[in-house]
């Protein structure tokens, strides 16, 4: 095996690890061709906002409880094939992380030319979908707040801090 092969295998292994650790958790509705668009920087920021929201949720769950919080993405185990497997809370599935706290956020716009899908109504709808995803049996909204998007006048991020019911 020459050095080129080593580099290729290493690249493949790194890619696999990154896919396992990152892509599976991405909630962003990102179109591949957006990466070549004139607003590609906005797309990176906006799409990764959701990623960050997911990260915050994990961080919050770690802080507020317990080993069960790690079940959200699992600990991972090495199989005979060399591929690391772990349980993933796939999009669309419902789980209930009793008594754990999460923080989620969604962008919305108050610009006069904002589209309907950018409205606060849709942002709230998405937040409720997220809450239902993690807290299938119910939740309490502990706090909600809004931050302005410094990149775009009239755009904001709506945050919900919520805790799954204990039952």
């Amino acid at each position, binding site marked *: 095996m020459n050095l080129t092969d080593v580099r290729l295998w290493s690249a493949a292994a790194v890619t696999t690890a990154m896919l396992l650790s990152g892509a599976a958790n991405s909630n962003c509705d990102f179109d591949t*061709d957006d990466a070549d668009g004139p607003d590609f920087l906005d797309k990176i920021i906006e799409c990764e906002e959701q990623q960050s929201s997911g990260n915050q949720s994990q961080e919050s769950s770690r802080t507020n409880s317990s080993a069960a919080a790690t079940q959200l993405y699992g600990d991972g185990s090495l199989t005979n094939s060399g591929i*690391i497997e772990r349980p993933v809370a796939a999009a669309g599935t419902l789980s209930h992380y009793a008594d754990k706290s999460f923080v989620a956020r969604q962008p919305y716009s108050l610009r006069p030319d904002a589209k309907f899908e950018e409205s606060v109504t849709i942002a709230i709808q998405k937040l409720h979908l997220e809450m239902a995803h993690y807290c299938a049996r119910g939740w309490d909204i502990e706090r909600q707040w809004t931050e302005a998007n410094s990149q775009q006048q009239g755009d904001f991020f709506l945050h919900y801090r919520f805790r799954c019911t204990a039952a």
Partner: protein
Amino acid sequence: MNKLVLSAAVAATLGLASNSFADGPIDGTIYGKINVSVVNTDQNSADKWKLNSNASRLGVKGKTKITDGLYAVYKAEFEMCVDDGDCKGQTFTQRNIMGGIRGSFGTVWAGKHDSPTKLAQKKIDLFNDLEGDIKNTFEGENRVSNIIAYTSPTLSGFSGTVAMIPGEGADVDGDGVDDTGLTDGISYSLSYSADNLYLAVAGDQDVDNQDLVRMVMQYKMDALKLGAMYQQNEDSQGIKDESGFFVSAAYKIDKTTLKAQYGFIEDDVDGDEEETLSLGADYKLSKNTKAYIFYTDNTDSELDSDDDEASSFGVGMEHKF
């Protein structure tokens, strides 16, 4: 020895993976697409079938928060040649790769990347990466090395990008003198977006040996999407002085999108003309997968020789992930 290196690399990678489980997901997203087509090309009556990989790619992008409102952003994208695995002798070739700092002031970024002029074209080229790609007819579709750029925030729909491109010792303007400055090449764009309208003006100076100005318009009306571009460009030696236009239209009917585009450019120095016409349709199989069919005719006409004509038709599929 090589096995030892490999073992170390894999061990390090698994360590990375373990760490990522401990610390949460990486701050980024893997993305990409596979685009392949079976194409019959008739070039000056010579007929050939090919399987093409059309800019299939794998990329990673993301941002990392530094402080409130300040982020590091990055993107690294590589082409993979799905048809034969040979991307100019490499397994992967570099596409857009950049890193930058983003704040309320805008974004300062650098790397090897599509120029602001190319980005300003938006997606009016409906046959991008295929035989009808606008780059086969028009100048200005450049992915530039050593680009250093600033992109403003979007204010009331307006956004601008200006980029400087050091020559690093190359003769970028063709004057016989090596260029070593910071602004040997310049590319810029100013765009306006509102509702369904997109307008942009963009230009290059000494980029790919061209000075260029282009204007772009895109307008969406329900299922219909229209695009138009006007461009003037001349090379640094004054041998070429071109002007031309490009129009495109796409009409969506349920899962099918009908597409057509036409471009024409003429060289005012020697009268040479280039023309491109493409017709096609996309059929959406799922959110991320489509099948498509197309026909393209590209013609280069020179006053003192026969036309160089290439027509192609093909079917293909694209899957994004």
